[in-house]
């Protein structure tokens, strides 16, 4: 994605460049190319270039501008000149103050130059990012990102640099600075002394003091906090810059956590309780996770924190078995699942076999993705890992186990229990669903019948077949009972009858009056 954006930018600049040449014939175009190449250290004669252009336009019938573009790029490629670098200079990077750059939020990407002081460097969250952090000048601060594809030397904290040919991007109505191959950074002649700090400036010290909060209190991103928690689960390592990742919890709940390598924390064990100091919450896809970066500390504590069980249970139909189920191979170095005999990180390795099921259970309201581990898979399929390996070898088909899984699971109803992470349910137990409960059916049926009756009655009233009050009396059990009682009193005596009715009415009115008073009192308060 990021590389594509870079290319798109370069392309857009290129087309500006070609349009601006104003070349009316091939010789002019050839001269333009010659000049450009010469500026970048490649000396080619105008005639040679013109010949190429002719070939493109006359034999291949390519429009002149397109021919110019493709010939230029072909020469650049031939002489190993970076396309981005050549064209970036042709763009219109304007020198601006950071406050002005921030004001560009919501606008299309643009190129700028500015001078700024690095006030914060963050931990890289992705291998394609070399550095990220905040730079500031006397007008404001802004986030910057340097892609790994650049050859920019790492920036140093508190130093002032001239940033040239950087891209202003807008994301979520906030502007930020991106440095791609076209960018250059050089130490500035004059140091910026005072930086106008916004609220987003965060202390980077291990000694700052935070409030001790519970998991339940950490419901949004960007909170610096201390936290006492138990490590519920440690994930397989996900990235080389992550030391530990998993799920932690206290008595109020559980959440994901990430400990970055830069924290220099070397030991965290599942099941133990720790005090996390200077942790920061991050929001990711609507989920809150807590991170420990270079500013954070993790200390083991004697106190035993019991994580609130986040057991998730569902009853649903198995609707899919995802790729990566059945007999799989894992890299012996990093335990990652290999694809086609390759580990994405360690290349061709002799993998170790594992058995698992990635099943989707659909309960009609949500499709739940689950992972069933080797132990449970062996039990469910009644196939040992070694047997599975043998079956795959014999049939020459590693997918054969997958077919068995699909046949066994798809279309059947299961009760699944497990720990819910942000995407998967790590299954602890899975059982075939119990046969349908007769009560459940009869209750629903009764409910539907009643709804139909009510509707019928409503229609009858509309059609004038019965009177409204007839139904009310019928539905009102108390009055029915009263009438029964009255009949028991053998009230052929009409007066008696009326008295009772009146008394009931009076009681009703009394209640209403009381209620009114109460309401008024509340208003007064």
């Amino acid at each position, binding site marked *: 994605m990021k590389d594509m954006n870079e290319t798109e930018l370069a392309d857009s600049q290129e087309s500006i460049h070609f349009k601006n040449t104003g070349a009316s014939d091939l010789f002019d175009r050839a001269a333009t190319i010659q000049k450009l190449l010469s500026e970048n250290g490649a000396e080619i004669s105008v005639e040679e270039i013109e010949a190429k252009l002719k070939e493109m336009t006359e034999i291949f019938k390519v429009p002149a501008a397109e021919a110019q573009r493709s010939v230029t790029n072909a020469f650049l490629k031939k002489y190993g000149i970076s396309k981005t670098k050549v064209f970036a200079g042709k763009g219109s990077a304007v020198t601006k103050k950071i406050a002005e750059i921030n004001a560009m939020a919501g606008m299309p990407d643009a190129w700028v130059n500015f001078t700024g002081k690095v006030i914060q460097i963050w931990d890289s969250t992705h291998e394609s990012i070399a550095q990220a952090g905040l730079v500031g000048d006397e007008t404001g601060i802004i986030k910057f990102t340097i892609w790994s594809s650049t050859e920019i030397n790492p920036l140093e904290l508190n130093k002032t640099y001239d940033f040239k040919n950087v891209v202003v991007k807008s994301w979520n109505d906030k502007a930020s600075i991106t440095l791609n191959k076209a960018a250059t950074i050089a130490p500035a002649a004059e140091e910026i002394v005072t930086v106008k700090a916004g609220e987003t400036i965060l202390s980077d010290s291990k000694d700052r003091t935070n409030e001790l909060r519970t998991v339940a209190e950490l419901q949004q991103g960007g909170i610096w906090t201390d936290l006492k928690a138990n490590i519920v689960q440690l994930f397989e390592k996900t990235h080389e810059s992550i030391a530990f990742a998993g799920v932690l919890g206290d008595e109020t709940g559980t959440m994901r956590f990430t400990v970055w390598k830069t924290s220099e924390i070397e030991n965290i064990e599942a099941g133990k309780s720790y005090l996390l100091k200077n942790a920061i919450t991050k929001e990711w896809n609507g989920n809150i996770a807590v991170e420990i970066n270079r500013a954070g500390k993790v200390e083991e504590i004697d106190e035993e924190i019991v994580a609130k069980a986040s057991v998730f249970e569902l009853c649903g*139909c198995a609707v899919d078995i995802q790729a990566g189920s059945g007999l799989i191979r894992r890299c012996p170095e990093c335990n990652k699942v290999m694809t086609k005999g390759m580990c994405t990180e360690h290349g061709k390795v002799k993998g170790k076999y594992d058995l698992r099921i990635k099943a989707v259970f659909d309960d009609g309201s949500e499709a739940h993705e689950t992972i069933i581990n080797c132990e449970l898979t062996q039990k469910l399929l009644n196939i040992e890992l070694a047997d599975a390996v043998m079956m795959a070898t014999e049939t020459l088909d590693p997918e054969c186990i997958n077919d068995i899984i699909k046949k066994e699971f798809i279309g059947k109803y299961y009760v699944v229990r497990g720990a819910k992470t942000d*995407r998967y349910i790590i299954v602890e137990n899975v059982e075939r669903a119990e046969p349908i409960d007769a009560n459940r*059916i009869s209750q629903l049926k009764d409910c539907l019948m009643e709804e139909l009756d009510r509707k019928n009655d409503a229609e009858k009233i509309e059609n004038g077949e019965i009177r409204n009050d007839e139904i009310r009396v019928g539905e009102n059990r108390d009055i029915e009972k009263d009438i029964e009682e009255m009949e028991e009193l053998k009230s052929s005596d009409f007066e008696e009858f009326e008295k009772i009715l009146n008394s009931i009415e009076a009681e009703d009115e009394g209640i209403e009056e009381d209620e009114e008073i109460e309401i008024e009192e509340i208003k007064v308060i």
Partner: protein
Amino acid sequence: MPGYFREIAVRMFAKEMKDSDLIYREEEEQYAPQYVLTPTGAKANRILISGVLTEVENIGSGTEYYRARISDPTGTFTVYAGQYQAEAARFLAEAETPAFVTVIGKVTAFKTDDGNTILSIRPEYIQNADEKDRDLWVAETAEKTHERIIAAETETNENIKNALEHYSPEFSEYRKMIIQALEAISSN
């Protein structure tokens, strides 16, 4: 996980599917998912059905192309499987009737010359089931359909609005349909 989202398998009875003819795509593109909006306001791309396979016919000329009929207590679903649903086609080629089957698949629409829309199912999976799973499906589908009816009568959202406008559904008819389905499974 960005951008990932799996369509749930909507539960609906054959009668409701038969009554449905409001087909739409959320985007204009050719490959954008196609949805059917049913009279009770269900918006379905993928559906889950469980019933009895009653008939399988190879209607392909040259290549194998199967049409199967699957019955639930309220009506019949039609399933088509050809070379792009190889596993389902193989299943149908070898299937015996009658048999309990469960199908997970996508709703597809076909417009006849006289302007009628006929819905069928293109299976992702078709598998043998047992009576227990069929009963569970009927109960679940009954509940889900009932929930949709209640929602359509009491709430409003885009789907409900469009469904009411297009079908002017008689909900007592669908209530009777649910009762009929429930009676079919409670009688044994």
